[in-house]
């Protein structure tokens, strides 16, 4: 073995150097077999650090490079590029994680230094077995799949479609629009939600580059970046969209009324054939077969009788579509926290305790009360209204996180209640969080409008009264943390600002697309700060509330950001993949076929003519399961070969646990 290895130990400021004796590790690494040079530097990822490596490759003729720094998931690409610039094959590089795996997780400095040495030794031993590799280049299919037709998905779809590429937009409800279509006004500008959303929905519906698949769900995804095959179930609308003109006579004539638990959140009824709201895109209705009289009893067909174009098709079946796309954006949004889970707030039991979404519908002119803020008796205006913040958020019993939109939403509610009823409004908050542009100004405005802010988490809402002025009222009980006392505040209506939660089927969605969920259930981004719309799976992006709670501007920004990332990939036309693949050595393969059934990507086939197995490099994803299974050792795993891993094991175990200063292995 005559490799010339360069070892570089990064201080990462004090992140590594504060715990690991980096000079000592560097000095010690210089004594390891095959090591030509070993250095330490304050920031290896800085241009000076990278230039140091490039210079050594040129001047010292290094044939292998090891950098001990942060996780390879952060800077492996950086140093591979540095090697490449200096003319060294980038795969002749190995990264050792001294920050995430040593300095950040170890308290004892001596033991940390010792562990760092073990990891560096393993890296050096591994790297001498590295082989020069070339990335696998694949074409990018320019078509894009977007899942979720809320504002984030709409924005992403329009950006991509406007750039001239085709988008399949899949939405499981009968119309796009998402939660934004349900809102009345948007904070802090108080412009009408529908007025700014509807034009965008209309553009999606009309766009020649968008195939809109509503009432549809993705069932299966195969493939990899640039080359996904997606199976979509287009549920039967029971309406022929070629014939339907969207006149809505069917909806008018349908005799069956059903409580609308989706769009009107249980506050109003819709028909069994319906569009969720008048501005729905597409304009075609769907028949709710669970509630339609014809499907339940076999008679009725009122819609069919009155349809002027004969568009009703009771026999229509679900369609299974297969589309090929190069990239995917998941913009599946959120579910609202169900306040029934906090029984002390009385939601579902006390009629005038309502959720934030119910208030949105109530205050919306096209909603169930035609925009009138009234109590459940259907006529009385409230004189006092309580708005409770952080319902299901910032609460270890439910969700630890801040739902981010509730403070601003509650301020908006305070304004709307005051404007419409002149009622006295209380906001019960833990902390006010109004950090975005023009948000705090809105808060100041609400203070000036005379909304009462009471600091403290509401303990309970009750109709059990103690004093005559509480008679017939709802009493909000809490400990006021500013006044330092228990308070009972009688009100007529309580609005619970419910938090945002991950979609209840977010985990299943994640499984279909190979994207993980955080412990809270939100889809995980590639990097929380530097790569918020990409995921660990190349070609799959996320946008909007699917990634975490956020407001409309942030959702729009993420939708556009994800679209830009996708367009960047389409523009490149092809992408380089890590050449981590398995290959069969036909000389040593005995043709036992043990590997044949192990591959979930069907990459392994048995060649009848030669009697050996063969791996299709385009289908292989590089997991290495077949490599480990081959009894003849005939399958090798590129960049994760037996030699590399065995050498790494030896290196890890070449350094004792206790500190032995200055002793080479």
């Amino acid at each position, binding site marked *: 073995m005559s490799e010339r290895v360069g070892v570089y130990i990064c201080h990462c400021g004090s992140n590594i150097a504060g715990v690991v004796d980096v000079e000592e590790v560097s000095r010690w690494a210089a004594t390891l077999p095959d090591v030509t040079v070993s250095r330490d530097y304050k920031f290896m990822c800085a241009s000076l650090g990278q230039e140091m490596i490039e210079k050594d490759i040129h001047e010292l003729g290094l044939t292998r490079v090891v950098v001990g720094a942060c996780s390879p998931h952060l800077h492996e690409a950086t140093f591979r590029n540095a090697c490449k610039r200096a003319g060294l094959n980038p795969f002749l590089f190995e990264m050792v994680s001294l920050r995430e795996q040593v300095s950040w997780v170890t308290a004892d400095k001596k033991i940390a230094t010792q562990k760092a040495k073990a990891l560096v030794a*393993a890296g050096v031993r591994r790297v001498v077995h590295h082989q020069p590799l070339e990335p696998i280049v694949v074409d990018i299919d320019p078509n894009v799949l977007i899942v979720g037709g809320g504002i984030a998905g709409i924005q992403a779809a329009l950006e991509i479609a406007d750039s001239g590429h085709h988008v399949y937009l899949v939405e499981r409800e009968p119309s796009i629009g998402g939660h934004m279509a349900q809102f009345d006004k948007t904070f802090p500008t108080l412009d009408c939600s529908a007025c700014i959303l509807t034009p965008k929905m209309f553009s999606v519906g009309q766009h020649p580059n968008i195939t809109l698949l509503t009432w549809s769900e993705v069932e299966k995804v195969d493939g990899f970046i640039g080359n996904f095959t997606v199976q979509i179930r287009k549920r039967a609308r029971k309406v022929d969209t070629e014939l339907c003109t969207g006149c809505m006579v069917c909806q008018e004539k349908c005799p069956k009324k059903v409580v609308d638990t989706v769009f009107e959140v249980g506050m109003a009824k819709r028909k069994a054939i319906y569009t969720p709201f008048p501005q729905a895109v597409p304009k075609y209705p769907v028949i709710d077969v669970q509630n339609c009289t014809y499907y339940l009893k076999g008679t009725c067909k009122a819609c069919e009788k009155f349809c002027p174009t004969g568009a009703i098709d009771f026999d229509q079946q679900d369609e299974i579509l297969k589309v090929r796309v190069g990239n995917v954006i998941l913009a599946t949004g959120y579910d609202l926290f169900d306040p029934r889970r906090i029984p002390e707030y009385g939601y579902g039991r006390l009629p005038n305790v309502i959720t934030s979404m119910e208030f949105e519908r109530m205050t919306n002119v096209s909603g169930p009360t035609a925009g009138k803020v009234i109590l459940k008796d259907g006529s009385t205006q409230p004189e006092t209204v309580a708005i409770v913040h952080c319902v299901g958020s910032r609460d270890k019993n439910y969700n630890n996180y801040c739902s981010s939109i509730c403070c601003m939403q509650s301020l908006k509610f305070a304004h709307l209640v005051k404007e419409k009823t002149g009622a006295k409004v209380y906001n019960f908050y833990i902390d006010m969080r109004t950090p975005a542009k023009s948000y705090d100004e809105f808060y100041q405005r609400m203070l000036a409008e005379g909304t009462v802010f009471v600091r403290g988490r509401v303990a309970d809402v009750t109709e059990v009264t103690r004093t005559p002025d509480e008679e017939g009222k709802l009493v909000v009980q809490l400990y006021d943390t500013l006044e330092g006392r228990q308070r009972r505040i009688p009100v007529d209506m309580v609005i619970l600002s419910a938090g945002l939660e991950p979609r209840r089927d977010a985990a299943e969605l994640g499984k279909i697309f190979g994207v993980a969920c955080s412990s809270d259930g939100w889809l995980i981004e590639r990097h929380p700060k530097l790569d918020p719309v990409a995921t660990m799976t190349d070609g799959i992006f996320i946008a909007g509330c699917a990634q975490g709670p956020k407001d409309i501007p942030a959702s729009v920004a993420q939708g556009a950001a994800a679209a830009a990332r996708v367009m960047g990939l389409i523009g490149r036309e092809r992408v380089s993949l890590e050449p981590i693949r398995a290959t069969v050595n036909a000389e040593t393969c005995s043709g036992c076929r043990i590997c044949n059934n192990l591959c979930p990507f069907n990459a392994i086939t048995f060649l009848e003519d030669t009697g050996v197995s063969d791996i299709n490099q385009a289908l292989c994803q590089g997991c290495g399961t077949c490599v480990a299974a081959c009894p003849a050792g005939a399958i090798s795993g590129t960049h994760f070969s037996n030699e590399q891993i065995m050498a*790494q094991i030896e290196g890890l175990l070449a350094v004792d646990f206790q500190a032995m200063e200055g002793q080479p292995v």
Partner: protein
Amino acid sequence: MTEPGNFEPIIVGFTCNWCSYRAADGAGMARIKYAPNVRLIRLMCSGRMDPVFVLKALSEGADGVLVTGCHPGDCHYVEQNIKAMRRFDLLKKTLAEFGIEDGRVKLIWASAAEGILLAEEIDRMVAEVKALGPLNWKEIAWAPEELVPAQP
């Protein structure tokens, strides 16, 4: 040899690139301090875990081996962690024949979000192996690499 009483085991940990390696990154980012006895190797998938790697680690002086992967159903490669699990069960039977105690070789699932869980599992395993004492397999003449034919 290490004195009894202050024995500090060395454990080799195999991680999956997509879940448990990222969980280890996450534990780092959250600055969770856990036992420094575990040294990790990154594989692309727990399915790459050749049982010979475990034997190799034990024969090179490891007192225990930790194998980690994505939760069943969450495998980045569809279902290869299930194959790892099946293989692991067979390995455990073989190791028991060799007299290797149950607590020395472990398989745990840790998603990319479960840095805290991974750190806790590592602490628990280190305590368990500490209680079992050193394995001292390195002294036994044993060369498992002979089991794996060299590759070009």
